[in-house]
């Protein structure tokens, strides 16, 4: 048996799904995260039933890609659990009536039932059941209230096979049902609603956005530096370094195997940044430098998602984003890109037109450094002074604006206007938040560790056979004359294709000046996406657009690097 969970976005469908199946899913407050649907299993009496979390949809007359997917899925289901937001029957029942016309058995979960009480909404359940002709079960997905009753009523699902109606008739029918079952008593606005309105007004909204971004930045840095300074550095220096030194003795302190596994010793000691062996830098970079930033970034972005702040940021940024040929919603993938470009480029799917997706994906892979790269920028460039970090970020921001403006006027197609629901502010559920954080941090390690270790291995072997020296000599004129970098930096730029954090780490032993380090960081950030990003770009854009995008990247990186070399 196949059970479909269907309903408008932001009605708690995904939370209900995880309640029914016990499977870990990503639960977020903004529309769009469930575009790729989730599948799970549940016990239903003796049998096991398949449960599908269908993308949120307002109507079965599709107005977006996600709604088309939803309509296609409807034809494959045996039973539909229609999740309805009890605090907004007026809009939710439209989809319910459409479902009741289709002839598929339906049971209605009247979710967020607890909110009706404090919002002064009174719903006559018996009357609603009578008018709809299907079971209606009040539920509170976040606490689990009513879930058992809902499951018991799945076999009772029926279809009244309502006659097919035209849109206006259907809206009239919704109005008539709401008039008969719902009584709303007037009440004063809550502080959450006042805050909600303040965050989409130009002045107060701007102040709130700046405060939110500033606090986010401070928290990310505080948590990450705390993890590095108090957990990971002591672990590596006090526990891991002695182990490596003993191993180094066993391998007689040098040779091919020693250099690959432990790396080159600096002053007779393991140096986690410069030794560049599998067990030294190969573990230190992902765990002690990058993981802390990835974790704290996803902690903060998860909070922003689950409180419902992000759609408000989309409204605020809309005017600016239109200058880059995008609309406000594109700020969400862009922010995600500051964590990792891979989910960011996947998230560009929430943008409607091809043109927007091309511009957003290109801008993200050029001008939005991921958390791994940023961690290395903070570590290496920050050592020379805050002003140099500021130059790197300022340059990338300028590139984002200028390149976006150019793309806006040169890429053909159209950018549709913003039209989104602003969900109410909600208090995040800690359990769901920590689950999501765990999934993302684990996902980073599972994805990054094999590539990092592979990259370190390949680099050491190629280095041993002098391959890099050949490439370096070949490209030396461009790199030394145009970018002002030593020819050894070519190795790092080539390795940037595998992992940007590792690549930046390779600049560490080169004794670069602060200026060279700035140029190197910017060029590395812009030049080419890492292999994981490259693969998703290829999949999302197709070969032709990917080639265009890559062309833009390489020329933008060289031009920006050249200009920086001249002006600094």
């Amino acid at each position: 048996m196949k059970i479909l969970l269907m309903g408008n976005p932001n009605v708690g469908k995904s939370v209900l799904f995880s309640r029914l199946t016990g499977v870990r899913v990503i639960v977020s407050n903004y529309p769009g995260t469930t575009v790729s649907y989730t599948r799970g299993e549940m016990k239903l009496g003796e049998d096991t039933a398949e449960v599908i979390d269908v993308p949120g949809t307002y109507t079965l007359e599709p107005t977006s890609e996600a709604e088309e997917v939803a309509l296609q899925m409807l034809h494959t289901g045996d039973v539909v659990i229609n999740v309805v937001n009890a605090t907004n029957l007026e809009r939710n029942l439209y989809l319910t009536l459409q479902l009741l016309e289709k002839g598929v058995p339906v049971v209605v979960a009247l979710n967020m039932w607890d909110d009706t009480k404090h919002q002064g909404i009174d719903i006559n359940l018996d009357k609603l059941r009578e008018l709809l002709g299907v079971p209606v079960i009040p539920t509170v997905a976040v606490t689990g209230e009513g879930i058992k009753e809902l499951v018991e009523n799945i076999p009772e699902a029926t279809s009244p096979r309502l006659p097919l109606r035209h849109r206006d008739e259907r809206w009239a029918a919704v109005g008539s049902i709401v008039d008969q079952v719902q009584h709303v008593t007037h009440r004063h606005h809550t502080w959450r609603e006042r805050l909600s309105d303040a965050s989409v007004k130009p002045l107060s909204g701007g102040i709130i956005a700046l405060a939110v971004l500033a606090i986010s930045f401070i928290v990310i840095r505080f948590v990450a530096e705390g993890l590095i300074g108090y957990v990971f550095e002591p672990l590596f220096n006090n526990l891991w370094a002695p182990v490596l030194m003993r191993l180094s003795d066993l391998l007689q302190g040098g040779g091919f195997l020693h250099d690959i596994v432990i790396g080159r010793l600096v002053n007779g000691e393991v140096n986690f940044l410069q030794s560049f062996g599998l067990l030294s830098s190969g573990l230190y970079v992902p765990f002690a430098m990058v993981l802390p930033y990835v974790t704290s970034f996803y902690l903060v972005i998860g909070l922003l998602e689950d409180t419902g702040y992000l759609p408000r940021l989309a409204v605020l940024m809309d005017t600016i984003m239109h200058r880059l040929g995008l609309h406000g919603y594109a700020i969400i993938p862009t922010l995600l890109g500051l964590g990792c470009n891979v989910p960011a480029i996947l998230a560009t799917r929430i943008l409607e037109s091809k043109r927007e997706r091309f511009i957003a994906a290109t801008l993200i892979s050029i001008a939005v450094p991921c958390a791994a790269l940023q961690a290395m920028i903070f570590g290496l460039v920050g050592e020379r002074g805050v002003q140099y970090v500021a130059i790197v970020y300022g340059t990338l921001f300028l590139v984002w604006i200028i390149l976006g403006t150019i793309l806006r006027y040169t890429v053909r197609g159209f950018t549709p206007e913003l039209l989104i629901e602003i969900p109410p502010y909600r208090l995040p559920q800690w359990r769901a938040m920590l689950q999501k954080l765990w999934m993302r941090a684990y996902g980073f390690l599972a994805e990054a560790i094999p590539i990092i270790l592979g990259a370190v291995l390949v680099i050491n072997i190629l280095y041993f056979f002098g391959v890099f020296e050949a490439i370096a000599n070949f490209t030396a004129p461009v790199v030394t004359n145009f970018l002002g970098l030593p020819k050894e930096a070519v190795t790092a730029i080539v390795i940037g294709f595998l992992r940007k954090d590792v690549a930046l780490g390779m600049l560490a032993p080169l004794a670069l000046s602060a200026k060279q380090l700035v140029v190197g960081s910017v060029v590395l950030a812009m030049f080419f996406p890492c292999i994981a990003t490259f693969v998703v770009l290829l999949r999302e854009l197709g070969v032709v657009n990917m080639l265009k995008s890559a062309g833009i990247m390489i020329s933008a990186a060289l031009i920006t690097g050249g200009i920086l070399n001249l002006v600094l």
Partner: protein
Amino acid sequence: MPDERQTTLARMRAGQSGIVAQLQGGHGLVNRLSALGIIPGKKITKISSMLMRGPVTVEVDRTRVAIGFGMASKILVQLDDESTK
């Protein structure tokens, strides 16, 4: 004589409310707006608008929706008595 109480959502001031009178757009626009509950006959309140022809935020049926300025210009609203002063 044009009805003075009728205006577009884009031209309304923040805090004004009225009844949606007409959606002046093609099938696609009408579909997208009505999916979010913005249909003729609904009570609508403007919450805010962003500067420089930015999006307009409204309240319809106790939920808030942000609408691009161009679309908001195509939504005709019959203003309430108290909103026309």
